[in-house]
């Protein structure tokens, strides 16, 4: 991963409530990445961590909260108070983000949607009107997402590097295909990917690096492997609310661990609080 992500890159770690690539996000913090532009439809705890650890200079997003709990305090502190650094925002709707990923995967410079009309977001984001050349209707165009690096977590890879994920698959295929480089962490590497209902497969040749990261989506879940750690999300609010508590937590659980296994060991020892 150190070779594939550089300071200043545009990076999308995606996962729509499921298979969120926490382990990969932690690795970015360990490597001390800086000045990243982070893209994600639903930035939640791992983006709160990246922002609080000063890895980001800009966030491109459509909903930034702690799902079912409330605020992401590190995100808010960056936006409201510029701590630990000012955070530039490029805000979209979910539909706009989805269209931008679609366009990126399809190698088009923009996506088209019915949206962004009559609301205040239009004035604060990168969206432009586009006219249908047949009907004259005015629609909205959003610029394609073309991240430097796309990062997702999946259930499995085979030994040739083909990746399989199932359950809620979100925009994971799109982010891998839209990105110049892509990294996939997986729960396990298996000999063969047996077909599964609802599964998508990303062929090995669309991916630059595959790494095993068991329980690498924690505290989100991996369908068929483990459940969402709902308590973690609730307790995260207490860690995230305070700068010092947060920093101590990151130092101990992320900067102070070498990989996802050690992260889980430390977590089991001490609970979520620092």
């Amino acid at each position, binding site marked *: 991963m150190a070779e594939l992500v550089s300071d200043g890159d545009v990076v999308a770690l995606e996962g729509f409530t499921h298979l969120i690539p926490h382990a990969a996000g932690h690795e970015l913090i360990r490597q001390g990445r800086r000045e990243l532009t982070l893209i994600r439809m639903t930035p939640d705890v791992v983006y709160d961590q990246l922002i609080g650890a000063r890895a980001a200079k800009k966030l491109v997003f459509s909903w930034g909260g702690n799902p079912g709990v409330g605020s*992401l305090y590190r995100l808010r502190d960056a936006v409201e108070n510029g701590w630990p650094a000012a955070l530039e925002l490029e805000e979209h709707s979910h539909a706009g983000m989805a269209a931008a990923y679609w366009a990126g995967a399809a190698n088009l410079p923009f996506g088209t*949607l019915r949206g962004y*009309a009559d609301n*205040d977001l239009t004035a604060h984001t990168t969206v432009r009107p586009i006219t249908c050349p047949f009907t004259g209707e005015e629609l909205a165009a959003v610029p394609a997402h073309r991240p430097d690096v796309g990062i997702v977590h999946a259930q499995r890879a085979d030994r040739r590097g083909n990746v399989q994920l199932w359950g809620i698959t979100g925009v994971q295929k799109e982010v891998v295909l839209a990105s110049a480089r892509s990294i996939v962490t997986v729960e396990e590497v298996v000999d063969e990917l047996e077909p599964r209902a609802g599964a998508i497969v990303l062929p090995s040749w669309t991916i630059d690096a595959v790494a095993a990261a068991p329980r690498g989506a924690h505290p989100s879940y991996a369908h068929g492997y483990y459940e969402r750690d709902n308590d973690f999300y609730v307790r995260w609010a207490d860690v995230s609310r305070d700068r010092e508590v947060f920093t101590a937590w990151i130092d101990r659980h992320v900067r102070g661990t070498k990989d996802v296994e050690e992260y889980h060991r430390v977590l089991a020892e001490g609970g979520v609080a620092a």
Partner: protein
Amino acid sequence: MTATATYTADEMMAVAAARRLRDGDVCFVGIGLPSLAANLARATHAPKCVLIYESGTIGAKPASLPLSIGDGELAETADAVVSVTEMFAYWLQGERIDIGFLGAAQIDRHGNLNSTVIGPYDHPKVRLPGGGGAPEIARSVRDVFVMLRQSPRTFVETLDFKTSVGDRVRVVVTDLGILEPGGDGELSLTSVHAGVDPDQARAATGWNLHVADGVSVTAEPTGEELAALRQLEPRGGV
């Protein structure tokens, strides 16, 4: 059958919203009260309601209330699971959804909603999570149902930010009563919940709330409704 059992304000809200769903309605639901209301409708008078969560699950049939819109049970019980790009392009923008539920931090008299910021956008006092699916839900579904506790901080004269437009808002269910748009599009109080005086609702509103002629009293939750609700939410409350 009248309910004599006590119930919470959230339960009253869920029941009032659920009753407005018709059997077979296709509902775009978020987590919390909307999910509770739609699942209650499915468990009672509207078993053929179709629940769609923006995470991509179409026709989800959760036995208990999901804690996140991406819970595994939603995918397991769904008729189909689609990508999020497909969900927003083919299903929401495709105008296949009858009912969309929205919440917000602020609402104005026209049903416009703010879930973006309190204070100026560039220097917010409070940075809220943002619109998510709301901007397009508000303009793509047939009927928008808003569920929101009523207070002068929330029901405001002027939004700090307009995240979504109110044109399709058909009902606002609050902890005090029910608001519906009149012919001029302005929300007025059409029902108060049991024990609530219309003046209480007016006091909890930042604009001069019009009370409809013949404002009714919302029927209290029935025992059956409460039993179904609590079955969905074993821990009691949302």
